[in-house]
C-alpha cells in the first residue's frame, strides 16, 4: 500500500493559507523603501524574524523560514522523501562548495546551506578526511564522478555539471520510490525547462554541441538529440518545435531573449509554469502532491520576497520589480 499522506495533507492545507497572498506582495512592491517592505511582513509567518532584522539582512529571514518549513514538513510527513526530493539541491550545492574549497585550498564555510539532507558538519568531515563511506550512496558516487571530471579538465564548471547531472538522477530515484506520477512528471518537466534555458545560454556563448551535451540534464522528455539537432539553427526553430509540447507557454520567454538578450522573462515563465502545474495537481488529498507543492510554493515565495527586497534595497522602480515577481501559489 502506498504511503498515506492524509494527515500531512490536512496540515498543509491550513499551512497553505499562511503563504503570502497577492495583496501582501503587491503592498511590498508598492512600499516606499526596503524597511517599509519588510514591515509588510510583520503580521505574516515571517513576522517574528522580520521585526528583529534590518532590511539588508533579509537572507537570514528567508533561510530561517525555509529551515523551519523543511523541518515541519519532515515532521508531519510519513516519509522524509517529500522533503528530501527538494532538499537534495542543497546537498549538491554543499558538495560543490566543499569540492571547490578543496581544490582552491580555502574554506568558505559561510556559503554552505544548512537545509540539505546531510548535516553540513558531517559532510565537511567526510571531505576533510577524504572518506566518503558514511555518505549516502548517491552523494558519494556523484562526488567521485565530479572529482574525476575535474582532475581531467581542471575546469570548475565540470564539477558543477557532473553534480547537477547526479542531482537530477538522485531526484528521479526518489521520485520512482514514491510511485507518484505527479512527482516524476514535475521533475522531468523542470529538467526540460532548465535544459531549454541551458540550450539558449550555451548558444549565446557560442559553444558547440559537445559542450551542450555535457551541460544538459538527464531524464527530461526532450532528449539530448532534440537539442543537438537544433544547435546550428536559429532560436526560431526551437520556438517552432516547442509549440507542440507542454512548453508552449515558454516560447514568449525565448522570443523575449531574442529581442533583449535577457532571460528574465523566460525564468519567470519557467517558475510560473511549474507552479501552475503543481497547482493543478495539488488537490489529491492522499498523495505527496500537496506537501511537495507546499514546500515548492514556499521556496517560490522566498524567491518572490528576495526579488522584492533586492529590488527595494537597490531602488529599482516598482514596475521593474513587478515584472520579475513570480506568481503566487
Amino acid at each position: 500500500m502506498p504511503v498515506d499522506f492524509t494527515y500531512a495533507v490536512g496540515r498543509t492545507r491550513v499551512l497553505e493559507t499562511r503563504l503570502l497572498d497577492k495583496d501582501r506582495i503587491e503592498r511590498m512592491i508598492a512600499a516606499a523603501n526596503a524597511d517599509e517592505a519588510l514591515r509588510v511582513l510583520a503580521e505574516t509567518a515571517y513576522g517574528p524574524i522580520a521585526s528583529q532584522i534590518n532590511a539588508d539582512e533579509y537572507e537570514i529571514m528567508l533561510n530561517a523560514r525555509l529551515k523551519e518549513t523543511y523541518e515541519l514538513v519532515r515532521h508531519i510527513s510519513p516519509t522524509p522523501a517529500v522533503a528530501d526530493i527538494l532538499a537534495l539541491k542543497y546537498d549538491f550545492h554543499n558538495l560543490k562548495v566543499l569540492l571547490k574549497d578543496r581544490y582552491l585550498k580555502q574554506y568558505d564555510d559561510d556559503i554552505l546551506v544548512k537545509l540539505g539532507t546531510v548535516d553540513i558538519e558531517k559532510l565537511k568531515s567526510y571531505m576533510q578526511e577524504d572518506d566518503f563511506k558514511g555518505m549516502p550512496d548517491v552523494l558519494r558516487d556523484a562526488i567521485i564522478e565530479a572529482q574525476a571530471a575535474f582532475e581531467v579538465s581542471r575546469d570548475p564548471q565540470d564539477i558543477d555539471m557532473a553534480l547537477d547531472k547526479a542531482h537530477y538522477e538522485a531526484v528521479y530515484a526518489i521520485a520512482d520510490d514514491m510511485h507518484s506520477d505527479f512527482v516524476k512528471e514535475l521533475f522531468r518537466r523542470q529538467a526540460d525547462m532548465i535544459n531549454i534555458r541551458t540550450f539558449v545560454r550555451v548558444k549565446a556563448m557560442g559553444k558547440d554541441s559537445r559542450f551542450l551535451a555535457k551541460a544538459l540534464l538527464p531524464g527530461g522528455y526532450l532528449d539530448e538529440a532534440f537539442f543537438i539537432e537544433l544547435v546550428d539553427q536559429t532560436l526560431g526553430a526551437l520556438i517552432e518545435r516547442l509549440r507542440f509540447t507542454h512548453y508552449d507557454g515558454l516560447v514568449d520567454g525565448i522570443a523575449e531573449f531574442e529581442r533583449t538578450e535577457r532571460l528574465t522573462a523566460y525564468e519567470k515563465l519557467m517558475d510560473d509554469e511549474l507552479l501552475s502545474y503543481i497547482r493543478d495537481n495539488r488537490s489529491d488529498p492522499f498523495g505527496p502532491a500537496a506537501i511537495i507543492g507546499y514546500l515548492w510554493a514556499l521556496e517560490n515565495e522566498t524567491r518572490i520576497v528576495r526579488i522584492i527586497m533586492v529590488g527595494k534595497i537597490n531602488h529599482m522602480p516598482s514596475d521593474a520589480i513587478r515584472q520579475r515577481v513570480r506568481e503566487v501559489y
Partner: protein
Amino acid sequence: MAQMNVNPTRMELTRLKGQLATAVRGHDLMKDKRDELMRRFMDLIKKNKELREKVEVELTEALHSVLLARAVMSKEMLEEAVMYPTRRMDINIEMVNLMSVEVPSIQYKEDGSADVSMYPYGFANTSGELDSAIARLHEILPDMLELAQVEKTCQRLADEIERTRRRVNALEYIMIPQLEETIRYITMKLDENERSTLTRLMKVKEMLQERNL
C-alpha cells in the same frame, strides 16, 4: 619689492647678473614645459573623460545584471557559482617617464586555457542573468585597467603642472624682479661710490692745488 641682502660689490653684481640670466632662461624653459604639459594633459583628460563615461555606462549595465542575478538566486548559490574563477589577470605595472614625470603603464595578460569556459559554473541552478553579468564584466576589464592608468597619469601630470606653474610664477614674480632690483641697487650703489670717489678725488686735487699755490 624687497631686495636681497648683499654687499654692493662689483663681484656680487657679476654674480647676480649671471643669476638673472639663468633665471630668465629658466623661466622661458619652464614656461615651455608648462605649455607642453598642459597640452598633453588636455589630451589625456579628454581621453580620460571618454573612457570614464564608457566604463561607467558598461559597469552600470554589468552591475545591473549582477543585481538581477542576485535577485533570483540565493546568496549562497550565487557565491558558489563564482567562487572558482577560471580566468586570471596578471597585471604588471611599470613606471615610464613622460616629460620627466613618472607615470604608470599597466600591462595585463589574461591567463587561463581557451578550452576552459569563462563561466565557472553549471547551468542547472544558476540564472541566465549571471551569464550576461560575467560576460559584461569580462568585457570591460581592459577598459577599466586603461582608465586606471590614464587617471593616474592625469593625476601625476596635474601635480607636475602645478609645480611647474608655481616655479614659473616664482621666477617671474619673485626671483627675477628681486634680482633686477638688487642689481639696480648695486649698480646705483656702485655708481654713487664712483661719484663720491670722483668727488673726493676732485676735492683732494683742489686741496693739493691750493697748497701748491
